[in-house]
């Protein structure tokens, strides 16, 4: 096994593309090292991307925010501008692991680990976040939900490295929120999770909405029907009941040790109502 710390993203791409065996990208290592120790993977090459210029910082751009791929989640929470603009994304990122893990883990790692229960992903999908990917044939930018394709699997090809997550500037009267259901309050994996992102008009009517559910399908689900229910309405009781129904119906969960499929469908509806109410309040709705 070789360990290399390239100083540029192009060097990282060249190293990985040119490696004969399996290559692993190391940022926070909170998934990679666990998988290596468990004997699930034995990479021939580890490429530590933390020394690459700009990958450990959050930049405010004319379009919004660019979060470097090696930025620990703790740094997201400490960034007041990001927390003000995207509180739902930040609260989701802050739920990954303990204080110790927060100092290392990244949202790009969370995305590429491709767990259906990843905490930051529903919030990023709801936020319409994009992944900036550098690879052998140049750069491409894709919606984050295009990255995971199934448990543990991504659409990235060999040599491709995500260098940043991009978030838009916020229109006025916008809010986002993320909630998950876990038996414990800390250090646990979501049974079901939901992220919502809303913009409302001056009368409090929802003008755009995105709602994503986690841990209820092989990948995080963007529930298009939820947007149809919400747009043009206020989150009154009848609207929220219709929202819960379309969200429960969109789920394709499995039974496992954390919950049954039937239970997950029901909880998905409940969480959808709660995150929409929370996002609505953050957007300034009453």
């Amino acid at each position, binding site marked *: 096994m070789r*360990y290399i710390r390239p100083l540029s993203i192009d060097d990282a791409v060249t190293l990985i593309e040119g490696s004969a065996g399996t290559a692993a990208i190391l940022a926070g290592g*909170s998934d990679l*090292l*666990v998988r290596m120790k*468990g004997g699930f993977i034995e990479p021939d090459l580890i490429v*530590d991307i933390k020394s690459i210029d700009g990958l450990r910082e959050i930049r405010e751009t004319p379009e919004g925010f660019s979060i470097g791929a090696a930025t620990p989640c703790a740094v997201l929470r400490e960034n007041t501008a990001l927390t003000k603009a995207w509180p739902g994304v930040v609260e989701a990122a802050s739920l990954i692991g303990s204080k*110790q893990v927060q100092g290392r883990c990244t949202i790009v790692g969370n995305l590429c680990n491709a767990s259906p229960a990843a905490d930051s992903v529903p919030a990023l999908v709801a936020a319409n976040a994009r992944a900036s990917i550098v690879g052998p044939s140049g750069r491409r930018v894709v919606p984050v939900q295009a990255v995971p394709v199934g448990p543990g699997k991504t659409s990235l090809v060999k040599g491709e490295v995500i260098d940043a997550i991009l978030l838009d500037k916020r229109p006025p009267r916008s809010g986002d929120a993320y909630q998950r259901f876990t038996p414990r309050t800390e*250090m646990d994996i979501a049974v079901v999770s939901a992220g919502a992102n809303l913009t409302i008009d001056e009368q409090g009517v929802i003008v755009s909405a995105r709602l994503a559910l986690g841990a209820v399908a092989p990948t995080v689900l963007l529930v298009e029907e939820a947007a149809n229910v919400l747009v043009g309405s206020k989150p009154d009781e009848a609207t929220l009941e219709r929202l819960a129904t379309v969200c429960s119906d969109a789920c394709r969960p499995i039974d496992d040790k954390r919950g049954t499929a039937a239970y997950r469908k029901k909880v998905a509806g409940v969480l959808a109502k709660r995150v929409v109410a929370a996002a609505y309040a953050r957007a300034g709705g009453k």
Partner: protein
Amino acid sequence: MAGIAVSTTINGDKVEYLCHPDETLLEVLRDRLGLTGAKEGCGTGDCGACSIILDDRLVCSCLVLAPEAEGRRVETIEGMAHGDKLHPLQQKFIEHAALQCGVCTPGFLMAAKDLLTKNPNPTEEEIRFGLAGNLCRCTGYDKIVRAVQDAASMMRGAA
């Protein structure tokens, strides 16, 4: 041994070591450098017994590769006391009997130190959330929380 030469700072001292690319920082601290304060409980970042501070961030040293420490600042439990003078947290852990078997204690002390650096006057809830990444199977946590509260108050008084 053919290995990676790493130059780092541990508890204020310049340290150089050779390591394999897949060795963890915890393994190097314990097995190559004789710093056995950090413990391996789970080895998967769940228990916090191997907690250290790396460039002012609390991390699990079992989830850091040893070559990653190049050019960085590592603080371990061995650097907490000044000679024979215990850190207020260490002193209060003894006074409150906030330990039994002691395996989790170095990790708790590092996590509590990090917490009090960032928040010198935490509420009980903030202490419990701040230490949620550290598991103790003996004490039931109450004595640990009291010791941290008492140490925080002592440190605020001294400041």
